[in-house]
């Protein structure tokens, strides 16, 4: 019997404002693997990421989200974070008046093995900034306020490296548009994989971000359903053929169901 995966999404159906946007989604990610979630715009990829993290904007109507053997369904996002899930955002939200350093301290407070006192914290921050080629002066700036695209990504990757989650869900739907951001994310993923035996779920519709990455499995999502799962070779195929065939198949299915 295979060991149970780190993340196991089973029969997940979810809605926003009483409109169902995910239908019976299944997704398993064993520890240590790198998975990719692909699909056209509006397929529900980011929604899935937010649901795994517990975004209260969405309602989980059916199914389960098991992480590390524990049911996440009723846990608030901070509990899921402390259980070891990390979701990168397209960009951190702006929180005026809160310096980045104050925020980072709060994220590690009370985490066994991660909590650091003053000097230790600053040393670690310097290290991480150096690794990400980030000016430490940013630590004194207000979170998200006036940051460029690349800087915002650096802030997200900095947290990924600081928190060392068991599972990192990187929502990079739009990163392909920004060359700077793309570089930052690649570097962040690289460092994360090196420093931990981390597990990755990369959400994207752009295959460029996946170059030089050792991908284990690829999941394709269309219209709120996972329609295909395969090994890394699927990436090249999608690169050439796009998502049209999946979308057509989904339409045909829908048409058949309607009959």
């Amino acid at each position: 019997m295979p060991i149970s995966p780190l993340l196991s999404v089973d029969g997940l159906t979810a809605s926003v404002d009483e409109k169902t946007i995910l239908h019976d989604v299944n997704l398993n990610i064993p520890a240590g693997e790198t998975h990719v979630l692909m699909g056209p715009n509006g397929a529900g990829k980011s929604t899935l990421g937010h649901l795994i993290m517990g975004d209260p904007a969405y309602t989980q109507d059916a199914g389960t989200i098991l992480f590390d053997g524990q049911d996440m369904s009723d846990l608030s996002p901070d509990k899921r974070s402390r259980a070891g899930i990390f979701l990168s955002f397209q960009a951190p939200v702006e929180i005026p008046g809160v310096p980045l350093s104050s925020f980072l301290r709060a994220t590690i407070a009370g985490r066994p093995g991660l909590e650091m006192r003053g000097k230790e914290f600053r040393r670690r921050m310097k290290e991480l900034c150096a690794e990400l080629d980030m000016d430490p002066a940013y630590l004194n700036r207000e979170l998200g306020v006036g940051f460029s695209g690349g800087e915002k990504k650096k802030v997200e990757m900095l947290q990924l490296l600081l928190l060392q989650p068991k599972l990192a869900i990187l929502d990079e739907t739009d990163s392909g548009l920004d060359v700077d951001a793309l570089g930052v994310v690649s570097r962040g993923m690289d460092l994360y994989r090196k420093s931990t035996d981390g597990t990755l779920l990369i959400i994207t519709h752009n295959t460029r971000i996946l170059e030089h990455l050792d991908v284990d499995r690829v999941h394709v999502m269309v219209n709120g359903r996972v329609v295909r799962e395969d090994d890394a070779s699927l990436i090249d195929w999608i690169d050439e053929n796009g998502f049209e065939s999946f979308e057509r198949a989904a339409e045909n299915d829908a048409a058949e169901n309607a009959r």
Partner: protein
Amino acid sequence: MEQLKIKHASAMPAPTWSWLRMNDTEISLPAALARGGDIEIEAPDTLLDTASTFEGALAELQEHLDAKRANATDDRACVRAAQMDQEGAGGRETSDGSLGDLDTPALSRYQKRATLEEVAGDVTRAFETGIGMDARSYLNFAAGETVTIATEAGSTGEATIRVTGDAGTTVAASIDAVAAPDSSLSLTIALDAAPGSSDDASSNQGPAGVIGSELRVFAGAHSHVDVTVYVTADAGFVAVDDSGYVLDEGARVQVRHIVLGGGVTATGMAADLRSDTARIDIDTRYLASGSERRDFNYVVRHRGKRTISNIIANGVLAGSSKKCLRGTIDLVHGCKGSEGTERETVLIADEGVENKTVPTILCDEDDVAGNHGATIGHVRPEQLFYLESRGVSSEDAEALFIRAKLEDAALSAPDERIRAAILRLGNRLIDGFAEELEGDAA
């Protein structure tokens, strides 16, 4: 202890219902305080050794304005109404009780005063400070003398004024700042009172002491003036920060009020954007905890054309603290092309907090834009989700906001003494605050 009361302080120009108790505030001061003297003014001699005066600057501005003034009679309805009323009570009534002139609106007291002031066009008489005349007199008396800090045309200058309070005393600075055309002047005012002497303050004897500053600023044509006030006093002290600004053509003024401590604080500022294209940006950050009280009154009068103002206030209220912020943007007739914006964000971290906000816009001109907004309550949902997704619970988020207010101020403190005062305050509220932050600013 006998109390001295400054009544009707920080009154908003256009009052509203009195039962709300927001129209003004009353500042209670111990009556028997000695006049203290620990005021340090750190400024190069070139700034202090000056013949410029605030009054002189206003008189000169008045001359320019009078020269430009058109002599056409103004027969707008509000002007007719204000002048009619002035001719004697009941002037508009006819003997049979019917109304004489229905095309003339019945003005409120405020509207009448505003119209008459506008017609008079007198810079000196219109000059005001945020807290008002009584506070001004008190602070000027406590200060003893007024120090004038002035720049030469085209020059750059920097000054720091430190007012350090002590139990049993009133310590106040009275400053006139005059920035000559095309010059830059940067002022830092630190109102601090160390906790050492305040053991008796917590025993409900009323405030241990008073610190304050009275500031008048004239920003000459195309000058840049930067004023930052830190209030880091202990809870036993009353801090009174009163100021009034007059801006000539193209002047740029940036004001920062960072109010982190003080049992009772009153911050009041009024700005007269008298000449065209003047601009003022006001950035207020405050924190109140325990049973502290914060009072703010901002009045910005747009009189010149294409003038701009921004009032941004951001605060956290904890414990059983109380706060009232009055912000008035007055778009005076003739200020065509002007824009005023006012925005306040308040985080209420504890039950028992009292938060009052009145963001007023007065508008007597059509080609203008006035905007205000207020967000009061808790952390916004999208912010909260982000914080939670990184492991910060909603309870921790509130603690983070309080802490961040202090850390932000400490990180951006202009010098070691102000930074030390913020750390001292932080230590009082949060265990190991200073230790945690040590070296961060480096």
